[in-house]
Each structure stands twice: as structure tokens, then as C-alpha cells.
């Protein structure tokens, strides 16, 4: 009267094997679960009892002990329901467990149906790494899990079906998804909607190509938010690996819509009232925050100085490292957070400073206070600074054809390919993330560009950090033009995107 089967529990993005041992012994009917279960697992008793009964089986009137091994690992999540129910039925010899390599994942409802679970994909991925290749998962999670094509994904609708399958009375074909589809979700937004602002568009193109962080400063109505919202339309599609990584994070956060693979680059734009925990991630068992949800995508902060100062400062580590480490009493976890940071802001509280058509009503003091909310360390982590002004429509030739998102994206994709080829040996792909030690090697300046750099240094008094940033941006500009070496023209353009901090922040 003993059974043993496997399920999984997540810690961050990593899954751990959990053995569900069930023992039925004679004595007063009791139902005990041991092995550091959280509330959701303790409550599974009631769900399991009703689900077994309502599936047409008899709930054994024995002393039931469930042990979740390893006993020192804290377990959470509702995905254990199915394994506990099957464990009891197996111990009661209602079902036969033949296959030791089977992993059970699923939450039960009282009528025996199997409900979808959070984090199915990362569980399947990490169990696969432990050598498991057969999974019984909730039917609703099948699309997300079937991305992993070298394992058997057996989607089950209810408990009865699982028992029949185990007993050999029913065959369930393992689910294979259709070919991974990189078909782009066609957005209604397009860069052609923005009139003029060529400078801003060019800067966005560079930022997208090298995955550079970007700060847009300008008065209201200059198209900052409008263009940032169009940024995803010029970013290349996710590769299959990136796609899986992103889907894993969304799966854990429980944000996976219709449980499908995410193919669109994430674009996260939290409101400025967001707390630092919601940005970084947190909770008793830390959940991924906005920085991780924007992994491989864009994190956009509209009205940057309106964010609480501590929220802005917590961004420093994820921006620098590409991951975020969250420690809480119950767990300390690492989530990836390799995103492109885009922020927009007004040049002063009223927004009109520098606008030739409107009057700024702010005092010098209030302007300084407003700008000082953004610290230098944060500014230093932003490669490209652009300044926009509302361009009067009359000033622009109305017949000018605006460049479309598709045209920009093609160039961006091309330059990203170049970067991938160049950096194929290392884990760092895009120019924005180049390590300091590689910069000299990869960002080679032509003779005349070196001379120019020396002069620019004297003129603008750049810091060492700015120097590296300029080189990285110049590398991207050279990549856009498919040039091996960084020439004057690339370097001098890169310098333009760095001169802003001197202007507003002294």
C-alpha cells in the first residue's frame, strides 16, 4: 500500500524534482501531508478528496500519509494536486504506475477536471534537464509546453482520463505543436504616423539596432510617448530561444495569455505610481517584476521624474547586470532582466522649457529639483540621449514621405545579424551589452576617427564611462551602414547622442 511518483516545484525559473510518496495504512481515517507544503498544497486535501470521489472512485478509508521529498525543500503551487490524487489511487491499487519517468503536473477542481497551472513551461524545461521525457499536464497548458519538441507532452482533461491512460485503457497521443511560427503580430502602430522628428527616428533606429538604452527629453506633444510605443514595431522578432525564455518568465508570473508561446518582444510600460517591488519583483516567494517581464524586450518609463526616486535607483543593478537577484526570507532567486530601457521626460515640471511656442512657468529652483530626481549613475547607464522639440507642421514639407516601421526594421535586423555574427563566440550579442574589456577589440576606430575622438574629449570633457558609451553607439552606427571599422562620420554622430547630460544636468 505504497506508491511513489514525480512532480515538480519551481524556485524562480528553476524547477526541482519532488517525489510524492503515499502510504496507506490501517487506522483511523486521516489525511496528512508532510514535507514543508505551503497553504495551497495543504488545501489540496479537500480538492483531491472531492475530485477522487466525483471521478467515480472510492476515497480510501485509511490513514493516508503523503510525503513530499526532499523534505527540506519548501514547496508551493497547486500543480501537486494531480500527483497526490494519483499517488493515493496508486497506493489503493486503483491505478498501476508502470512508468517511473512520468511527471505529473496539474491542479484539480472538485469535479475531477484538471485546471491549468502557473509555470508549466519552466517546469517541463527543467525536468527535461533532469532526464524526464514524459509529462502529464493540464490540457490548457498544452500549447505552451509543446514548444519543447523532444519530450512527450500528454494533455489530460480530467482525473478519470489520467487513470484510464495509466491503466492502458485509453491512449492519449502526445501533443505536438505546429511548426514554430515566427509570424509577426501586425501592429496597427507605425512610424509613418509620426510626422517629422527625423532626429528622434534615427536615434530610435540606432537604439533598436544595438539594444541601447535611451532617454527622450522634450516638451509635451513632441511625440515622445508616441514614438516609444512604436518601438516594438521596429524590433526584430524573438528567436526561438529568446521566445522560450520570455515565455518561461510569463508562465511563472501567471501572465501567459491563452497559454501560448510568446513571439512578440515584450513592451512593458508601468505607470509611474509603480512601487520598487513591482518593478524588481518580490513577494513572499518572489515573483518576477517588470524588469524581468521586459526581458528581451523594452521597458518604457513615461515621465521618468514622476517615478519615485527609490524605484529609479533599483533599476541600476538590472540595467548593469542583465539579471536581478531578489532575496526574501523564504527564498532568494535570480531572474533574468536583459531589457532595453527607454524613458521619456519633460525638460521641466511644466514641460515647456526650450519650447519656442510656449512659455515655461517654472522657477529655476523647481527645474533643478525636477531634474535632480534622476541621478547621475542612472543617466550614466543610458547610452543614447535625445532631445526633441515639437516641430511645427508648417515648417515641414507636407509631401515628405515618412519612413515606415518595416523599412527601419529591415535595417535594424540586418545590423543585429552583423552583431550576432561578430559576437557568436560569446554570450553577449548586442553592442549595448559589450563588456569593457571587449570594447577596444570590437570597436576599432579608423585613424582619423581616433584623432576626432581626442579632439572631442578635449571639447566636451567626457568621462571614461561616456567614452565607452560613445564607442558602443558608434559601433552600432557603423553596423547600420555595414562598415567594418568605425569612421569619423559614425563617431561624430554618436557624440551627438551624448551631449545632453551636459546641457540639463551640470
Amino acid at each position: 500500500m505504497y506508491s511513489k511518483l514525480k512532480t515538480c516545484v519551481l524556485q524562480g525559473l528553476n524547477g526541482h524534482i519532488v517525489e510524492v510518496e503515499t502510504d496507506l495504512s490501517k487506522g483511523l481515517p486521516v489525511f496528512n501531508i508532510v514535507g514543508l507544503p505551503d497553504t495551497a498544497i495543504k488545501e489540496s486535501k479537500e480538492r483531491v478528496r472531492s475530485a477522487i470521489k466525483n471521478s467515480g472512485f472510492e476515497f480510501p478509508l485509511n490513514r493516508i500519509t503523503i510525503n513530499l521529498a526532499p523534505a527540506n525543500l519548501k514547496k508551493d503551487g497547486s500543480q501537486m494536486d494531480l500527483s497526490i490524487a494519483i499517488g493515493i489511487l496508486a497506493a489503493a491499487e486503483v491505478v498501476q504506475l508502470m512508468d517511473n519517468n512520468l511527471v505529473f503536473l496539474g491542479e484539480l477542481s472538485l469535479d475531477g477536471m484538471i485546471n491549468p497551472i502557473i509555470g508549466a513551461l519552466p517546469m517541463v524545461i527543467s525536468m527535461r534537464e533532469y532526464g524526464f521525457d514524459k509529462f502529464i499536464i493540464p490540457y490548457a497548458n498544452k500549447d505552451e509546453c509543446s514548444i519543447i519538441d523532444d519530450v512527450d507532452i500528454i494533455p489530460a482533461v480530467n482525473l478519470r482520463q489520467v487513470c484510464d491512460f495509466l491503466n492502458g485503457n485509453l491512449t492519449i497521443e502526445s501533443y505536438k505543436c505546429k511548426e514554430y511560427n515566427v509570424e509577426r503580430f501586425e501592429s496597427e502602430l507605425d512610424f509613418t504616423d509620426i510626422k517629422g522628428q527625423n532626429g528622434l527616428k534615427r536615434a530610435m533606429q540606432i537604439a533598436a539596432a544595438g539594444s541601447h538604452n535611451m532617454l527622450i527629453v522634450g516638451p509635451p506633444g513632441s511625440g515622445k510617448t508616441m514614438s516609444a510605443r512604436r518601438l516594438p514595431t521596429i524590433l526584430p522578432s524573438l528567436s526561438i530561444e529568446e521566445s522560450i525564455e520570455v515565455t518561461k518568465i510569463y508562465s511563472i508570473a501567471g501572465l501567459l495569455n491563452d497559454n501560448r508561446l510568446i513571439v512578440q518582444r515584450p513592451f512593458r510600460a508601468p505607470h509611474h505610481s509603480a512601487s520598487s517591488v513591482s518593478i524588481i519583483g518580490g513577494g513572499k516567494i518572489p515573483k518576477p517584476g517588470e524588469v524581468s517581464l521586459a526581458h528581451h524586450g523594452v521597458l518604457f518609463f513615461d515621465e521618468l521624474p514622476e517615478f519615485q526616486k527609490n524605484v529609479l535607483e533599483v533599476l541600476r543593478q538590472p540595467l548593469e547586470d542583465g539579471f536581478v537577484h531578489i532575496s526574501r526570507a523564504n527564498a532568494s532567486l535570480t531572474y533574468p532582466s536583459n531589457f532595453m530601457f527607454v524613458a521619456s521626460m519633460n525638460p521641466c515640471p511644466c514641460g515647456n522649457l526650450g519650447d519656442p511656442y510656449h512659455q515655461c512657468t517654472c522657477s529655476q529652483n523647481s527645474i533643478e529639483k525636477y531634474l535632480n530626481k534622476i541621478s547621475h549613475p542612472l543617466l550614466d547607464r543610458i547610452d543614447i540621449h535625445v532631445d526633441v522639440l515639437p516641430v511645427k507642421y508648417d515648417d515641414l514639407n507636407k509631401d515628405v514621405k515618412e519612413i515606415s516601421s518595416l523599412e527601419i526594421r529591415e535595417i535594424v535586423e540586418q545590423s543585429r545579424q552583423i552583431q550576432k555574427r561578430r559576437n557568436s563566440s560569446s554570450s553577449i550579442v548586442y553592442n549595448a551589452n559589450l563588456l569593457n574589456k571587449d570594447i577596444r577589440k570590437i570597436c576599432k576606430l579608423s585613424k582619423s576617427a581616433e584623432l576626432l575622438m581626442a579632439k572631442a574629449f578635449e571639447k566636451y570633457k567626457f568621462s571614461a564611462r561616456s567614452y565607452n558609451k560613445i564607442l558602443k553607439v558608434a559601433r552600432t552606427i557603423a553596423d547600420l551602414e555595414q562598415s567594418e571599422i568605425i569612421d569619423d562620420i559614425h563617431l561624430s554622430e554618436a557624440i551627438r547622442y551624448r551631449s545632453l547630460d551636459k546641457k540639463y544636468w551640470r
Partner: protein
Amino acid sequence: MRYGNREVLVWLNSIGINSDKIENLEEYYVDIKNILHTDRKELENLRFLNDKNIEKILSSNIEAVLNHLQNIITSQNINFLTKYDKEYPFKLEFISNKPSVLYYKGNLNLLDLDSIAIVGTRKPTIYGKWACEKFTKELIAYNLCIISGLAYGIDTIAHKTTIENNGCTIAVLGCGINKIYPKSNKKLYELIEDKGLIISEFPLDTEPLKFNFPQRNRIISGLSNAVFVIEAQRNSGSLITANHALDQGKDVFALPGNINSLFSEGTNSLIKDGAKLVQNVEDILIELENILHLEYNTKANKNHIELGETEQIICKVLEDGPLHVDLISLKSSLDINIVNSTLTILEIKGIVKEIASNIFAIC
């Protein structure tokens, strides 16, 4: 009596009796020293003194005040002049309500130079900034000393440009000379102290109070041979300076502006009322030639620099005035990336300057 006229003036100034009232006191006592033997009844008969003044005069101990003053003056390297001194600026002798005491730091000889005041709004537009820099540079090339008030905006630009181009500049403060206002101008203050002259008529430690600023404007115009208003709103303090200049019989120049611009309302109306419209620096020089002997300082002349093809195109476009990069790109039919990179090179060569966010002008 141990105390001379000088000491009495400084004492009166330090306890907050302004120049106007000191003049009245002098008229009454003939010898100002007599005020030391006064009593309440006598002071109360003087209509121009208010209760606070009387209280101060009676309660204050001249010895203590002067000792305290002496301590600060020596420790902070401040000097002072009174109107009884030989060094008292000749230019101020004949203005109405002339300051009785002037505190100063720096080189007093600058007062003898021919000078022009450049004043304007605290929040200049791009156009104002550009014009202020341009005219300041051109005027110091004629060895004119630039006088202004060390406030935000036009004042700061005028002082800064002068210092950067090795010109002479005098700052007239609206607060005590040992107070730096605005704080962001601390560095500029130190530079002017070092290379120019800082003057204030206000007692030491006077805070930058609103009503002090119009008062100091009479000194700005008084020290200058002419006043040039760059940009001014309708109620701007710069217009007060211009009015003082008129009262003192000085020339007033004004920069014309767009009639829609709030910051040109003041200057445009000055022009309407008879101030001279300034289109180029010659407009100022012609008027000043009659009273001054100006010589062009050839040292300030720029060397000719070789320009590439795109550089020439962009310079040509910018000759019409400051422009946004997007518009430079449009007018020159060059791609934005070419425009951006060329502008950087031109900026490094010192030919153009970014006068505001993404707006460039030839400097």
C-alpha cells in the same frame, strides 16, 4: 570724536539705513557725525525715518557694529568705498540717490573702462541666448567692459561669455556681497571676483530680497555708458534699468524680437518708445563712437578654418539664424545622420554652437 564720516556712513549702511535716507540725514545734520549725539525726540521729528530706523539708530552700538564688520571684511577679502572717498566711481557721482557705501571684491580699476550694461530676462529664449552671446563677444572685441547683475539668464550668459573670452566684466549684486545668489552661479562669482569686479551697495549678509533688485539696477545703468536690453517681458526688471539709464542720460539699446514672443514684449516697446534698435554691433558702436574712443581688438579676430563640402552647406543654412537639426536636415536636403555628424565636427572646430536642445547656431 574717534569716528570719521566714513565710519559713520558704513555704520548707518550696516544697520539698514538706505542711501536715500542717509542723504536726507546729511542734509539735516550737515556733518553726518552729529547723528552720534542725537536723541529720540530729535529723530522722531525727522519725517523720513520710520520707527524701525529710529530704534536701530538709538539701540545700535557703533563700535560693536564696526568691529564686527571689520572682522568679516578682513576674513572674506572684501573692501568698501564710501562717497567721501577719492576712489568713489566718478560715474556714480551724478546719479540721483547715489549709493553712500559700496562693498566690492576684485579689480577696482575696471570702473574706469568704457562699459556697456547687458541686461535681460532670467529665462531667455533660444534667440535671446544666441543674441546675448553673439553681441557680448562682439562688444568685448572693442574692449568694452560688460556690466550686468549676476542673475539667472541673460546676466549669467553675459558674464560667462565675457570671462570665457577674456573680457572685463563687473557684476552688481542685489544682495550682500558675501551672499552668492543664485547659488548655481558660485563658480562664476569666483571667476568674476578673480578676473573682474563685484559690487554691492547692500550691507553684508543681506538676503536676496525682491525689492532690492530694482534698486541695484540704478547702479548698473549708472556705471555703464549705455544699456543694452536683450530680452525683457512686459514687467521685467530690465526695463527699470533702461528707465534709470534714460534718467541718467545714457543711451538705451534694445534687441528687436518676434511680436508674438512674450520675452520680446518689453524690448519691442522700448524700441517703440525711442530706444535704438540693434541689428548688428555697428548699431551700438556708431552711437558710442561720439563719446568713447573704441578700438577694435584684433586679438579676438578668428582664424579662417578650412571647411568640407557638407560643412559648408550646413554653415550656409545656419547663416539665416539658429535652427533645429530636423530643419537643418530638411533645408540642406542632407540625411539626418550626416547632419548630426557634421554638426559635431563643426562644434569641435568651434564654428557652430548648440544653443539649446538640438538647436544650432553659428557662433
